[in-house]
């Protein structure tokens, strides 16, 4: 079974003719009066089928709120939210999510966790086993099928969580800082694997992170969010083909660009919240102190 056959049977059978996964957010607003949960104001965003969109921003900008709205865990107060023309209402396996803390069920094995959604959907046992086995192979965890969640490493847990979400053949895959808790080596490894899976399945992905590096590595489009209230500040298009070389100078350059955008945003927020700014000395400051000495020479 190929990756596409496992995770996107519709795609494999129709050769990509019927592309699904068009996610449209129109003027979405959400408020949480009297709560620390970040609000969103007038957010509009369209994810085309098969597009990898990364939302990046400082903590408290409402990235997770945005994702939870799409997941159907929250309902917007204003605006329209549609997936392939259908209004989003409540959680549904057509919009599966990979959580930061994996959210795997500790009483089930890796394979049983992946099979869970199929079981709920009433997929017959034999077919379920077949799809689970293929899914395990795709995330390179075949030998860990019968391990319990606490017996898996952090990276393996996230791979199971990705397989659990993809095995449902969702129209859109939501990812909420899925690699934030991993070490740098594992993160890079998972970035590579995710790219491989995404290229093969051509899923629409909405990915949320605070890591600019991660955003530029993975995304077709990087959306920077404003905070207080959350608004879209700017969009960057990453026109690099997949799979990417993460160490390429183009990526490094784009990271610098996006990071500058976010630093401005962080400084603005900190200034707003009356926090004292800590600014490292820039070379220009250092120069000024040495002016007298330089002049003497």
């Amino acid at each position, binding site marked *: 079974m190929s990756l596409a056959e496992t995770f996107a049977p519709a795609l494999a059978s129709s050769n990509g003719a019927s592309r699904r996964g068009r996610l449209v957010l129109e003027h979405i607003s959400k408020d949480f009066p009297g709560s620390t949960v970040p609000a969103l104001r007038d957010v509009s965003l369209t994810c085309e089928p098969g597009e990898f969109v990364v939302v990046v921003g400082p903590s408290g900008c409402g990235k997770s709120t945005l994702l939870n709205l799409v*997941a159907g*865990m929250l309902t917007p107060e204003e605006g329209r939210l549609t997936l392939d023309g259908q209004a989003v209402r409540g959680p549904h*396996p057509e919009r599966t999510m990979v959580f930061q803390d994996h*959210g795997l069920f500790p*009483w089930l094995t890796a394979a049983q966790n992946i099979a*869970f959604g199929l079981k*709920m959907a009433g997929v017959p046992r034999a077919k379920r086993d077949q799809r689970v086995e293929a899914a395990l192979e795709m995330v390179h965890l075949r030998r860990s099928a019968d391990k*319990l969640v*606490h017996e898996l490493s952090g990276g393996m847990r996230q791979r199971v969580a990705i397989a*659990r979400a993809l095995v449902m053949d969702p129209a859109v895959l939501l990812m909420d800082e899925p690699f934030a808790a991993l070490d740098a080596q594992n993160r890079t490894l998972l970035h590579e694997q995710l790219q491989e899976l995404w290229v093969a399945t051509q899923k629409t992905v909405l990915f949320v992170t605070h890591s600019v590096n991660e955003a530029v590595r993975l995304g077709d489009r990087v959306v920077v969010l404003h905070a207080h209230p959350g608004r879209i500040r700017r969009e960057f298009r990453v026109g690099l083909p997949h799979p990417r070389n993460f160490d390429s100078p183009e990526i490094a350059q784009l990271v610098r660009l996006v990071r500058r955008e976010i630093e401005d945003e962080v400084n603005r927020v900190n200034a707003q919240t009356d926090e004292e700014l800590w600014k490292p000395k820039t070379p220009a400051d250092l120069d000024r102190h040495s002016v007298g000495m330089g002049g003497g020479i």
Partner: protein
Amino acid sequence: MLNIPLALGEPLHKGWPLVLEDTVGVLIPSARPANAPSRHVFTSPLIIANLVSGVRLIVGFVISIVLGGALGLAMWRWIELDRLLGPVFLGLQTLPSVCWVPLGILTFGINERGVLFVLVMGSFFAIAIALRDGLRGIPPLYQRAGLMLGARGWRLYRYVLIPASLPAFASSLRQGFSFAWRSLLGAELILAVEHKGLGFLLATGRDFSDVAKVVAVMIVMVMIGMLADRWIFAKLQAAVHRRFGLE
């Protein structure tokens, strides 16, 4: 009445070593002195009392688990119900279980149902409260993950919430058991019903000023309580914790 202190003093007057010897005699009939009347092990009142108490315990505890489990689940699900019943249950937990005996007699009479009533009342509050607290401790993430994967309505309970509450349920069982065992023995001590349980045996020991019997029955009570806790409930709890990776 006047002879009770005297009668109580009598075996102690014999000295504790003798009492100890008699105690061993009650516990292990074959260890009795040769001149003592011999009795077959299986017809020994102690064995019968154990069986009677054991059956009552199992029946009553199962009723407690069902009632306490359902109520704990309901109190977790409907916060209004919890606001109403939660403080009442906490208050009732401070009531020693033998205090349910008079109500049990007046409601059911001096019979098996009266004993079971005391046992259930003495233990199911603890199970309900422990289960409610355990359910509250389930990470909301599990519920979200379940909903996302299509577990709705009763399926969310059957496949997500109930399995997720297993560690809490295991500890609530362990706690509920000790409550049940204590309540049962208290009820048997006071209620003299047709079948004689361990508590009744303790009462006869008192009535016949048989310190050896009293001590022996107490030892048996403690042993059964401890063994059930160690061999059944602690093992169950450990198994669940192993599965969940809780240490």
